[in-house]
C-alpha cells in the first residue's frame, strides 16, 4: 500500500463468524477501484473460533488488519476499529453483509458530494428462515428502507443502521463514536447525535450489500428484551424522543398478550412460562395457513419481551410514565408557507431558513402545521411535496376549494374530502418496532 493513507477504511466488527467475515472480505476483493484506495479493519470482538487466523491467512490486494479484544459489544468494536483506521471515510459493515460491486465507490462519491454526510447503504435481505417467519423477517428488513427510499423523505434518527453506513472520520470523532454501553440501538443513538449536530443522513444510491440474515425466532424474541432496555436508556438520555419510541404508545395486545401481561404483573416467571408455552401455537397456526392469527400471536410475543425489557430497565410503569412526561411539548412552527404562491416558492423559502417546523396555508385558509421535532432533520424544500401529499392532501384540497383554486372541470369536493376529521397536523411516524436488533 506504500506510505499514502487510503481514502476509505472499512470497519468490520465480528464475533465468532469466521465464514461470514471471510465472505465479506472476499466481496471487498471484487470491488471496483476507489480513488485513493481502501483498507479493511476487522475487529474480532471476543472471538473464540479461528476467525483471527482465517483473516490473517487471507491474501488481499488491500491492507487488512485484524484487531482482537475481549467481548465488549459491536459499538465498542466499531470504536476500536475506527480509532485504528487511517482513511478519511469510515465505512461500517456488519460481518453478515456482503457488499455488491460498486459499494465502496458509491460511499466515496457520496462523501465527495455531501458535506457532513452520513451515508446509509441498502441492506438487501437474504433470509435463512423459511415459512411465515422468513416472510415477516424479510418484510421487516425491507420496510427499514421504505421511507428513506423516497426522494422527499425527512430523515430521523432511527434511519441510521450501522450494518452498512459511512461517515467522515473527523465527523465520527467529533460525535464521539458509538455509545458502547448500549447493547442494542446504538445506531439510533448515534443517529440522534448526528442529526442534532446538523449532519445529513442520506440513502446512498448504488450502495447495496446483501444481508445474510440467519436469525431464528428464538433469537429474535430474546433480543426484544435488549430493545426494551435500550429504548429506556434512549428515553432517559433524550426525553424529547419519548413520543417517537414504541414504548410511548402501547398497542392493545391480543388475548395471549393480555394474559401474559397479567401473569407477569403477578410474577414475571409465570408470564415467561405462559408466553413460552403459547409460542408453540405458532407452528400450529402456520400448518393450517392462519397467517393473520400467526402474525397477531408473534406480535404479542414480541411485545411481551419488549415490555419485559422496559420493566427491567425502567423500574416500573410509574417511573416510565414519569420519564415520558419529561418530553418537551412540540415546537411551534417557525415559518408560514402560503401554497397559493406555488410549491417552488415554498421550497425556496424552506431551503433558506431550514426550519424545524412550518405552517401551511392557502391564501387565508389554514391547511395544517408540521411541528418541530427532536430527532428529525431540519426541513428542506425537498420534503414539502411528500409532506403535503401524504399528510395534508384533504386539507390542501379543502383550502384550495375555498380559495376557488380548483379548476372548473374537476369534480366538486366529495364527502370523503369535505368532512374534517383529524386535526390538521402532520402525524409523527412512530419508529418501527424492531423485529431484530
Amino acid at each position, binding site marked *: 500500500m506504500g506510505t499514502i493513507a487510503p481514502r476509505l477504511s472499512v470497519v468490520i466488527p465480528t464475533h465468532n463468524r469466521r465464514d461470514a467475515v471471510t465472505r465479506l472480505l472476499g466481496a471487498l476483493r471484487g470491488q471496483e477501484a476507489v480513488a485513493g484506495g481502501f483498507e479493511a479493519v476487522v475487529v474480532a470482538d471476543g472471538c473464540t473460533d479461528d476467525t483471527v487466523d482465517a483473516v490473517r491467512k487471507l491474501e488481499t490486494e488491500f491492507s487488512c488488519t485484524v484487531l482482537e479484544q475481549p467481548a465488549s459489544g459491536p459499538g465498542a468494536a466499531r470504536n476500536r476499529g475506527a480509532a485504528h483506521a487511517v482513511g478519511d471515510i469510515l465505512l461500517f459493515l456488519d460481518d453478515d453483509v456482503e457488499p455488491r460491486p460498486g459499494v465502496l465507490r458509491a460511499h466515496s462519491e457520496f462523501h465527495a458530494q455531501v458535506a457532513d454526510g452520513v451515508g446509509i447503504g441498502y441492506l438487501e435481505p437474504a433470509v435463512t428462515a423459511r415459512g411465515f417467519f422468513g416472510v415477516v423477517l*424479510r*418484510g421487516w428488513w425491507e420496510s427499514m428502507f421504505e421511507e428513506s427510499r423516497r426522494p422527499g423523505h425527512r430523515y430521523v434518527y432511527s434511519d441510521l443502521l450501522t450494518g452498512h453506513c459511512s461517515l467522515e472520520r473527523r465527523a465520527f470523532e467529533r460525535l464521539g463514536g458509538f455509545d458502547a454501553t448500549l447493547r442494542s440501538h446504538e445506531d439510533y443513538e448515534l443517529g440522534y447525535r448526528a442529526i442534532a449536530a446538523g449532519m445529513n443522513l442520506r440513502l446512498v444510491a448504488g450502495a447495496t450489500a446483501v444481508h445474510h440474515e440467519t436469525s431464528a425466532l428464538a433469537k429474535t424474541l430474546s433480543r426484544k428484551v435488549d430493545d426494551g432496555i435500550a429504548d429506556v436508556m434512549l428515553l432517559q438520555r433524550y426525553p424529547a424522543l419519548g413520543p417517537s419510541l414504541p414504548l410511548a404508545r402501547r398497542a392493545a395486545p391480543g388475548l395471549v398478550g393480555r394474559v401474559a401481561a397479567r401473569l407477569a404483573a403477578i410474577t414475571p416467571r409465570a408470564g415467561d412460562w405462559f408466553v413460552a408455552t403459547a409460542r408453540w401455537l405458532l407452528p400450529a397456526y402456520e400448518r393450517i395457513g392462519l397467517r393473520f392469527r400467526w402474525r397477531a400471536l408473534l406480535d404479542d410475543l414480541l411485545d411481551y419481551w419488549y415490555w419485559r425489557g422496559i420493566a427491567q430497565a425502567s423500574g416500573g410503569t410509574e417511573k416510565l410514565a414519569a420519564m415520558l412526561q419529561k418530553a418537551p411539548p412540540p415546537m411551534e412552527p417557525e415559518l408560514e408557507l402560503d401554497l397559493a404562491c406555488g410549491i417552488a416558492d415554498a421550497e425556496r423559502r424552506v431551503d433558506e431558513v431550514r426550519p424545524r417546523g412550518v405552517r401551511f396555508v392557502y391564501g387565508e385558509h389554514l391547511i395544517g402545521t408540521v411541528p418541530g421535532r427532536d430527532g428529525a432533520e431540519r426541513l428542506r424544500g425537498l420534503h414539502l411535496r411528500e409532506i403535503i401529499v401524504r399528510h395534508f392532501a384533504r386539507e390542501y*384540497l379543502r383550502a384550495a376549494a375555498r380559495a376557488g383554486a380548483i379548476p372548473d372541470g374537476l369534480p366538486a369536493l366529495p364527502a370523503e374530502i369535505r368532512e374534517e376529521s383529524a386535526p390538521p397536523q402532520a402525524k409523527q411516524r412512530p419508529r418501527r418496532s424492531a423485529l431484530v436488533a
Partner: protein
Amino acid sequence: MATAIRDVELSSPFAPIGDLGAYSRCLLVFRWRRRVVGRQIAPVVRNCVDTEVIAQAANQCGADALYYWLADTIGYDQRAVVGARALTATVAICTRERPDDLSRTLGAVAPLINAGHHILVVDNAPRTSRTREVVEQFRGVRYVCEPVAGLNVARNRAMREASTDLVVFTDDDAVPEAGWLDALRANFGDPRVLCATGLTLPIELDTEAQELFEELSPFARGFRRRIFDGQHDNPVEVGRVGAGANMALRRQTVDLVGPFDERLDAGTPTRSGGDHEMFVRILAAGYQIAYDPAAVSWHRHRRTYDEVRDTLWGYGVGVYAMFTGLLVERGELGVLRLAWAWFRSAHLPELRRRLLRRPPTRISPLILAELRGCLHGPAAWFTSRRLRAQR
C-alpha cells in the same frame, strides 16, 4: 344499442360530443392532462352528449381526480425512489390464431422498439403459420413458437426467453396506449414490488354482449394507484389486483416464487386463473404488487353473446380451480371464506331470483354460466393436474 367510448379532457372547457347516431349511451373516459382519472356512462340524446351532461358526469368522478390534480399541481410522483435504475423490458404477447387482433396489438407496441425495449410474440401451439406471417411484418419483433398448448406455458416460455429486467404481458386483443410501458416500469423502484398491473378499459362496446361483459366483469380496478402488500394484505384476495392482460413482472419472480402454474389458464381444462394464482404466490411470499392506473391498455371484449357466456363460464372454472389448488397444495383455508363470499354476493341473488320465479335480467344467464363454471372448477383442477403429470 351500443355504447360509444370517448375521451373527455378535464383541463379544457367541455365541448358537446356529437355524431353518436349509432349509440344509445356513451362511456366518457375522463382525463386530467392525458392521465385517466375516471369514467362514467352518459345517455346519448339526439345523437349527442351535451356539455351539461358531461359536466354532471365529470362531477361524479370524485376524489380520484382531485387527488391526481393535487399531485400534478405540486409535481409529486409517489413512485419516485432514490437512485432508481431505468429497467429494461420485454413486451411479451402470448397468442394463438388471432392474426387480426395481434396485428393491432403489435402496431400499438412496435414503437417501443425505438426506445430500446424488446418485443416478443409467443405463438402457442399454432395450427397455421398466420401468426408468424403477421410478426414478420413488424421489424424488430421476435417470434418464438411454443408447441405445448397453454397460456401459462407460453408465459413461462416468455419469462425464459427474455433477457431484460422486466417481462411485460399484454393480451393479443389489447391495445396499450402511449406511455403504458413507462407507467408500469415506474413502479419497480422498490425492490419489494415484483409485479405491476395497469388499468384496462374496453376499446369498443359495440355489441350487447360486450356491454354485458363490461357490466359483469370489467377489467378496470379503479383510478387510484394502490400497493398490495403481502406483509399486510390477504394474499388470496387478488380479485382487485388486476389481470394478466396488463401486467409486468420482474424476470427474477420465477426464481423467487416459481414459474406460472401450467395446470391453470387457457389451453387447459381450468380455462383461466393462471395470472391470479401467480399474484397469490407473490403476496404469500411477502412481496408487493402495484396497481397503477397510469398504465392504460384498451381491451377488445368478445363480441358475441355465446363467446361472452363461454368466457364467464371459464372465469368461474378458473377461479374455483385456483381455489382448489391453493386449498389442496398450500393449505390456504382462506379460500373457503372467499369462495363463500363470492357465491353469496354474485350468485346467490340470482339463484334466489330463480327460486322465486322472478323474471330473469339480461345478465342472469351469464351469472348462471359463471356459477356452473365455479361448480366445475374443482374437477377441472384435478383433471388438469392429472394431464400435466402425464405430459
